[in-house]
């Protein structure tokens, strides 16, 4: 009787066996992870190991991680497993997209810096070009100034030289006791050159003619007109002839000193151009003379 005490009716036994079998089967059938969850996990791992993206969207990555873990939990309901895998997959995708957006924004800072640097570079180049242009302009200006200075120096030198020249000439003119007139420099040689009635130069009375010769030698662009004059004593013809011969004597002397014949003209003026009155001894002495007119140099030559 004792063993009937533990006897279970056969329908009940069948039910229990079925239940246990079902439970075992359920356990065996439930996969440790759904394939969808595995895919999501793989994608998440790729994202997490991407150096550019892994740290961009930490919150989204954390949510994705939680969703993947939830999907990885064994599920008895296939539909729930698929659902959770779907959510996990999308959460991973969201994390990836957000990371890309953030990375692009971070890149933008770099791009802005590059832009600034490119702008700066452009400006620097422009400035360099401008500086180069300014430098060459300055160099050109300096060169021009130098040329101008040189020209000025030349002009100054010329002016100074001509001033010196003028002063020297003036000194020599003074020495010749010449007078500046419209006709040129007029040098009057007194009658001390000649004996009365003679046309030969007195020896020892030629110092003023020597100075004249030196002057003409120094200024080869000037020529001289030599005019002989007499007082009214004696006949006009005689006086004219005498004045001509005296003028020729002076010309000959100057030619002898090396002055070119073409630069010297000799004319006798006779008694026609008295300086003083012929009625006094002083007047007659003034009238007896040889004038040397040194023409002004032609402007074309100077």
């Amino acid at each position, binding site marked *: 009787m004792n063993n009937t005490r533990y006897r279970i009716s056969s329908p009940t036994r069948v039910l229990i066996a079925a239940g246990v079998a079902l439970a075992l089967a359920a356990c065996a059938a439930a996969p440790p992870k759904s394939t969808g969850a595995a895919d999501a996990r793989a994608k998440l791992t790729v994202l997490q190991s991407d150096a550019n993206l892994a740290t961009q969207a930490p919150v989204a990555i954390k949510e994705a991680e939680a969703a993947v873990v939830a999907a990885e939990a064994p599920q008895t309901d296939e539909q729930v497993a698929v*659902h959770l895998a779907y959510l996990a997959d*999308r*959460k991973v995708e969201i994390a990836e997209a957000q990371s890309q957006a953030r990375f692009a924004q971070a890149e*933008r800072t770099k791009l802005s810096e590059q*832009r600034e640097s490119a702008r700066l570079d*452009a400006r620097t180049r422009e400035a360099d070009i401008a500086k180069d242009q300014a430098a060459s302009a300055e160099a050109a200006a300096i060169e021009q100034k130098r040329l101008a200075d040189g020209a000025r120096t030349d002009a100054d030198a010329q002016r100074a030289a001509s001033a010196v020249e003028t002063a020297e000439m003036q000194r020599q003119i003074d020495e010749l006791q010449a007078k500046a007139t419209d006709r040129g420099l007029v040098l009057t040689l007194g009658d001390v050159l000649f004996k009365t009635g003679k046309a030969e130069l007195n020896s020892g009375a030629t110092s003023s003619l020597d100075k004249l010769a030196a002057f003409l030698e120094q200024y080869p662009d000037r020529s001289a007109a030599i005019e002989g004059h007499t007082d009214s004593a004696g006949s006009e013809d005689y006086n004219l002839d005498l004045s001509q011969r005296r003028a020729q004597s002076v010309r000959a002397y100057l030619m002898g000193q090396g002055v070119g014949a073409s630069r010297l003209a000799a004319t006798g003026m006779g008694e026609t151009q008295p300086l003083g009155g012929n009625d006094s001894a002083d007047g007659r002495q003034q009238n007896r003379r040889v004038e040397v007119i040194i023409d002004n140099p032609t402007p074309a030559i100077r």
Partner: protein
Amino acid sequence: MYESSQAPPRLLKAVGMACALLLVAACASTPPPSEALRAAEQAISNAERAEAAQYAAAELGEARTRLVSANEAVKEEKMVVAQQLAEQARVEAELAAARAEAAKAGKVNEEMKRGNDALVEETQRNSGAPR
């Protein structure tokens, strides 16, 4: 002699009762997943504001489709399915928004890059030979 054999029927009865209770409870405690549906709608309008229609049209379309399906499931009293579909619509819409933002950011960067390249090129052209 059979006093112990009365237990199994009692146990069966209890299991049956529990099952019935659970079933009733399940039906009674599953209202429409209105919160999940609202969240999905919100996520979709966020995505629309992010110009997902232009930059992530496929994802946005998918989100809308799933939201429609979720509402249909509600009508069919399949609240669990409706909940799942609403949640899926929401993540799909969130994905649409995220992809739209990423696409726009990438586009902006592309334009900036082009601008920079043009600037560099122009600078080099203006200055003649690169120094």
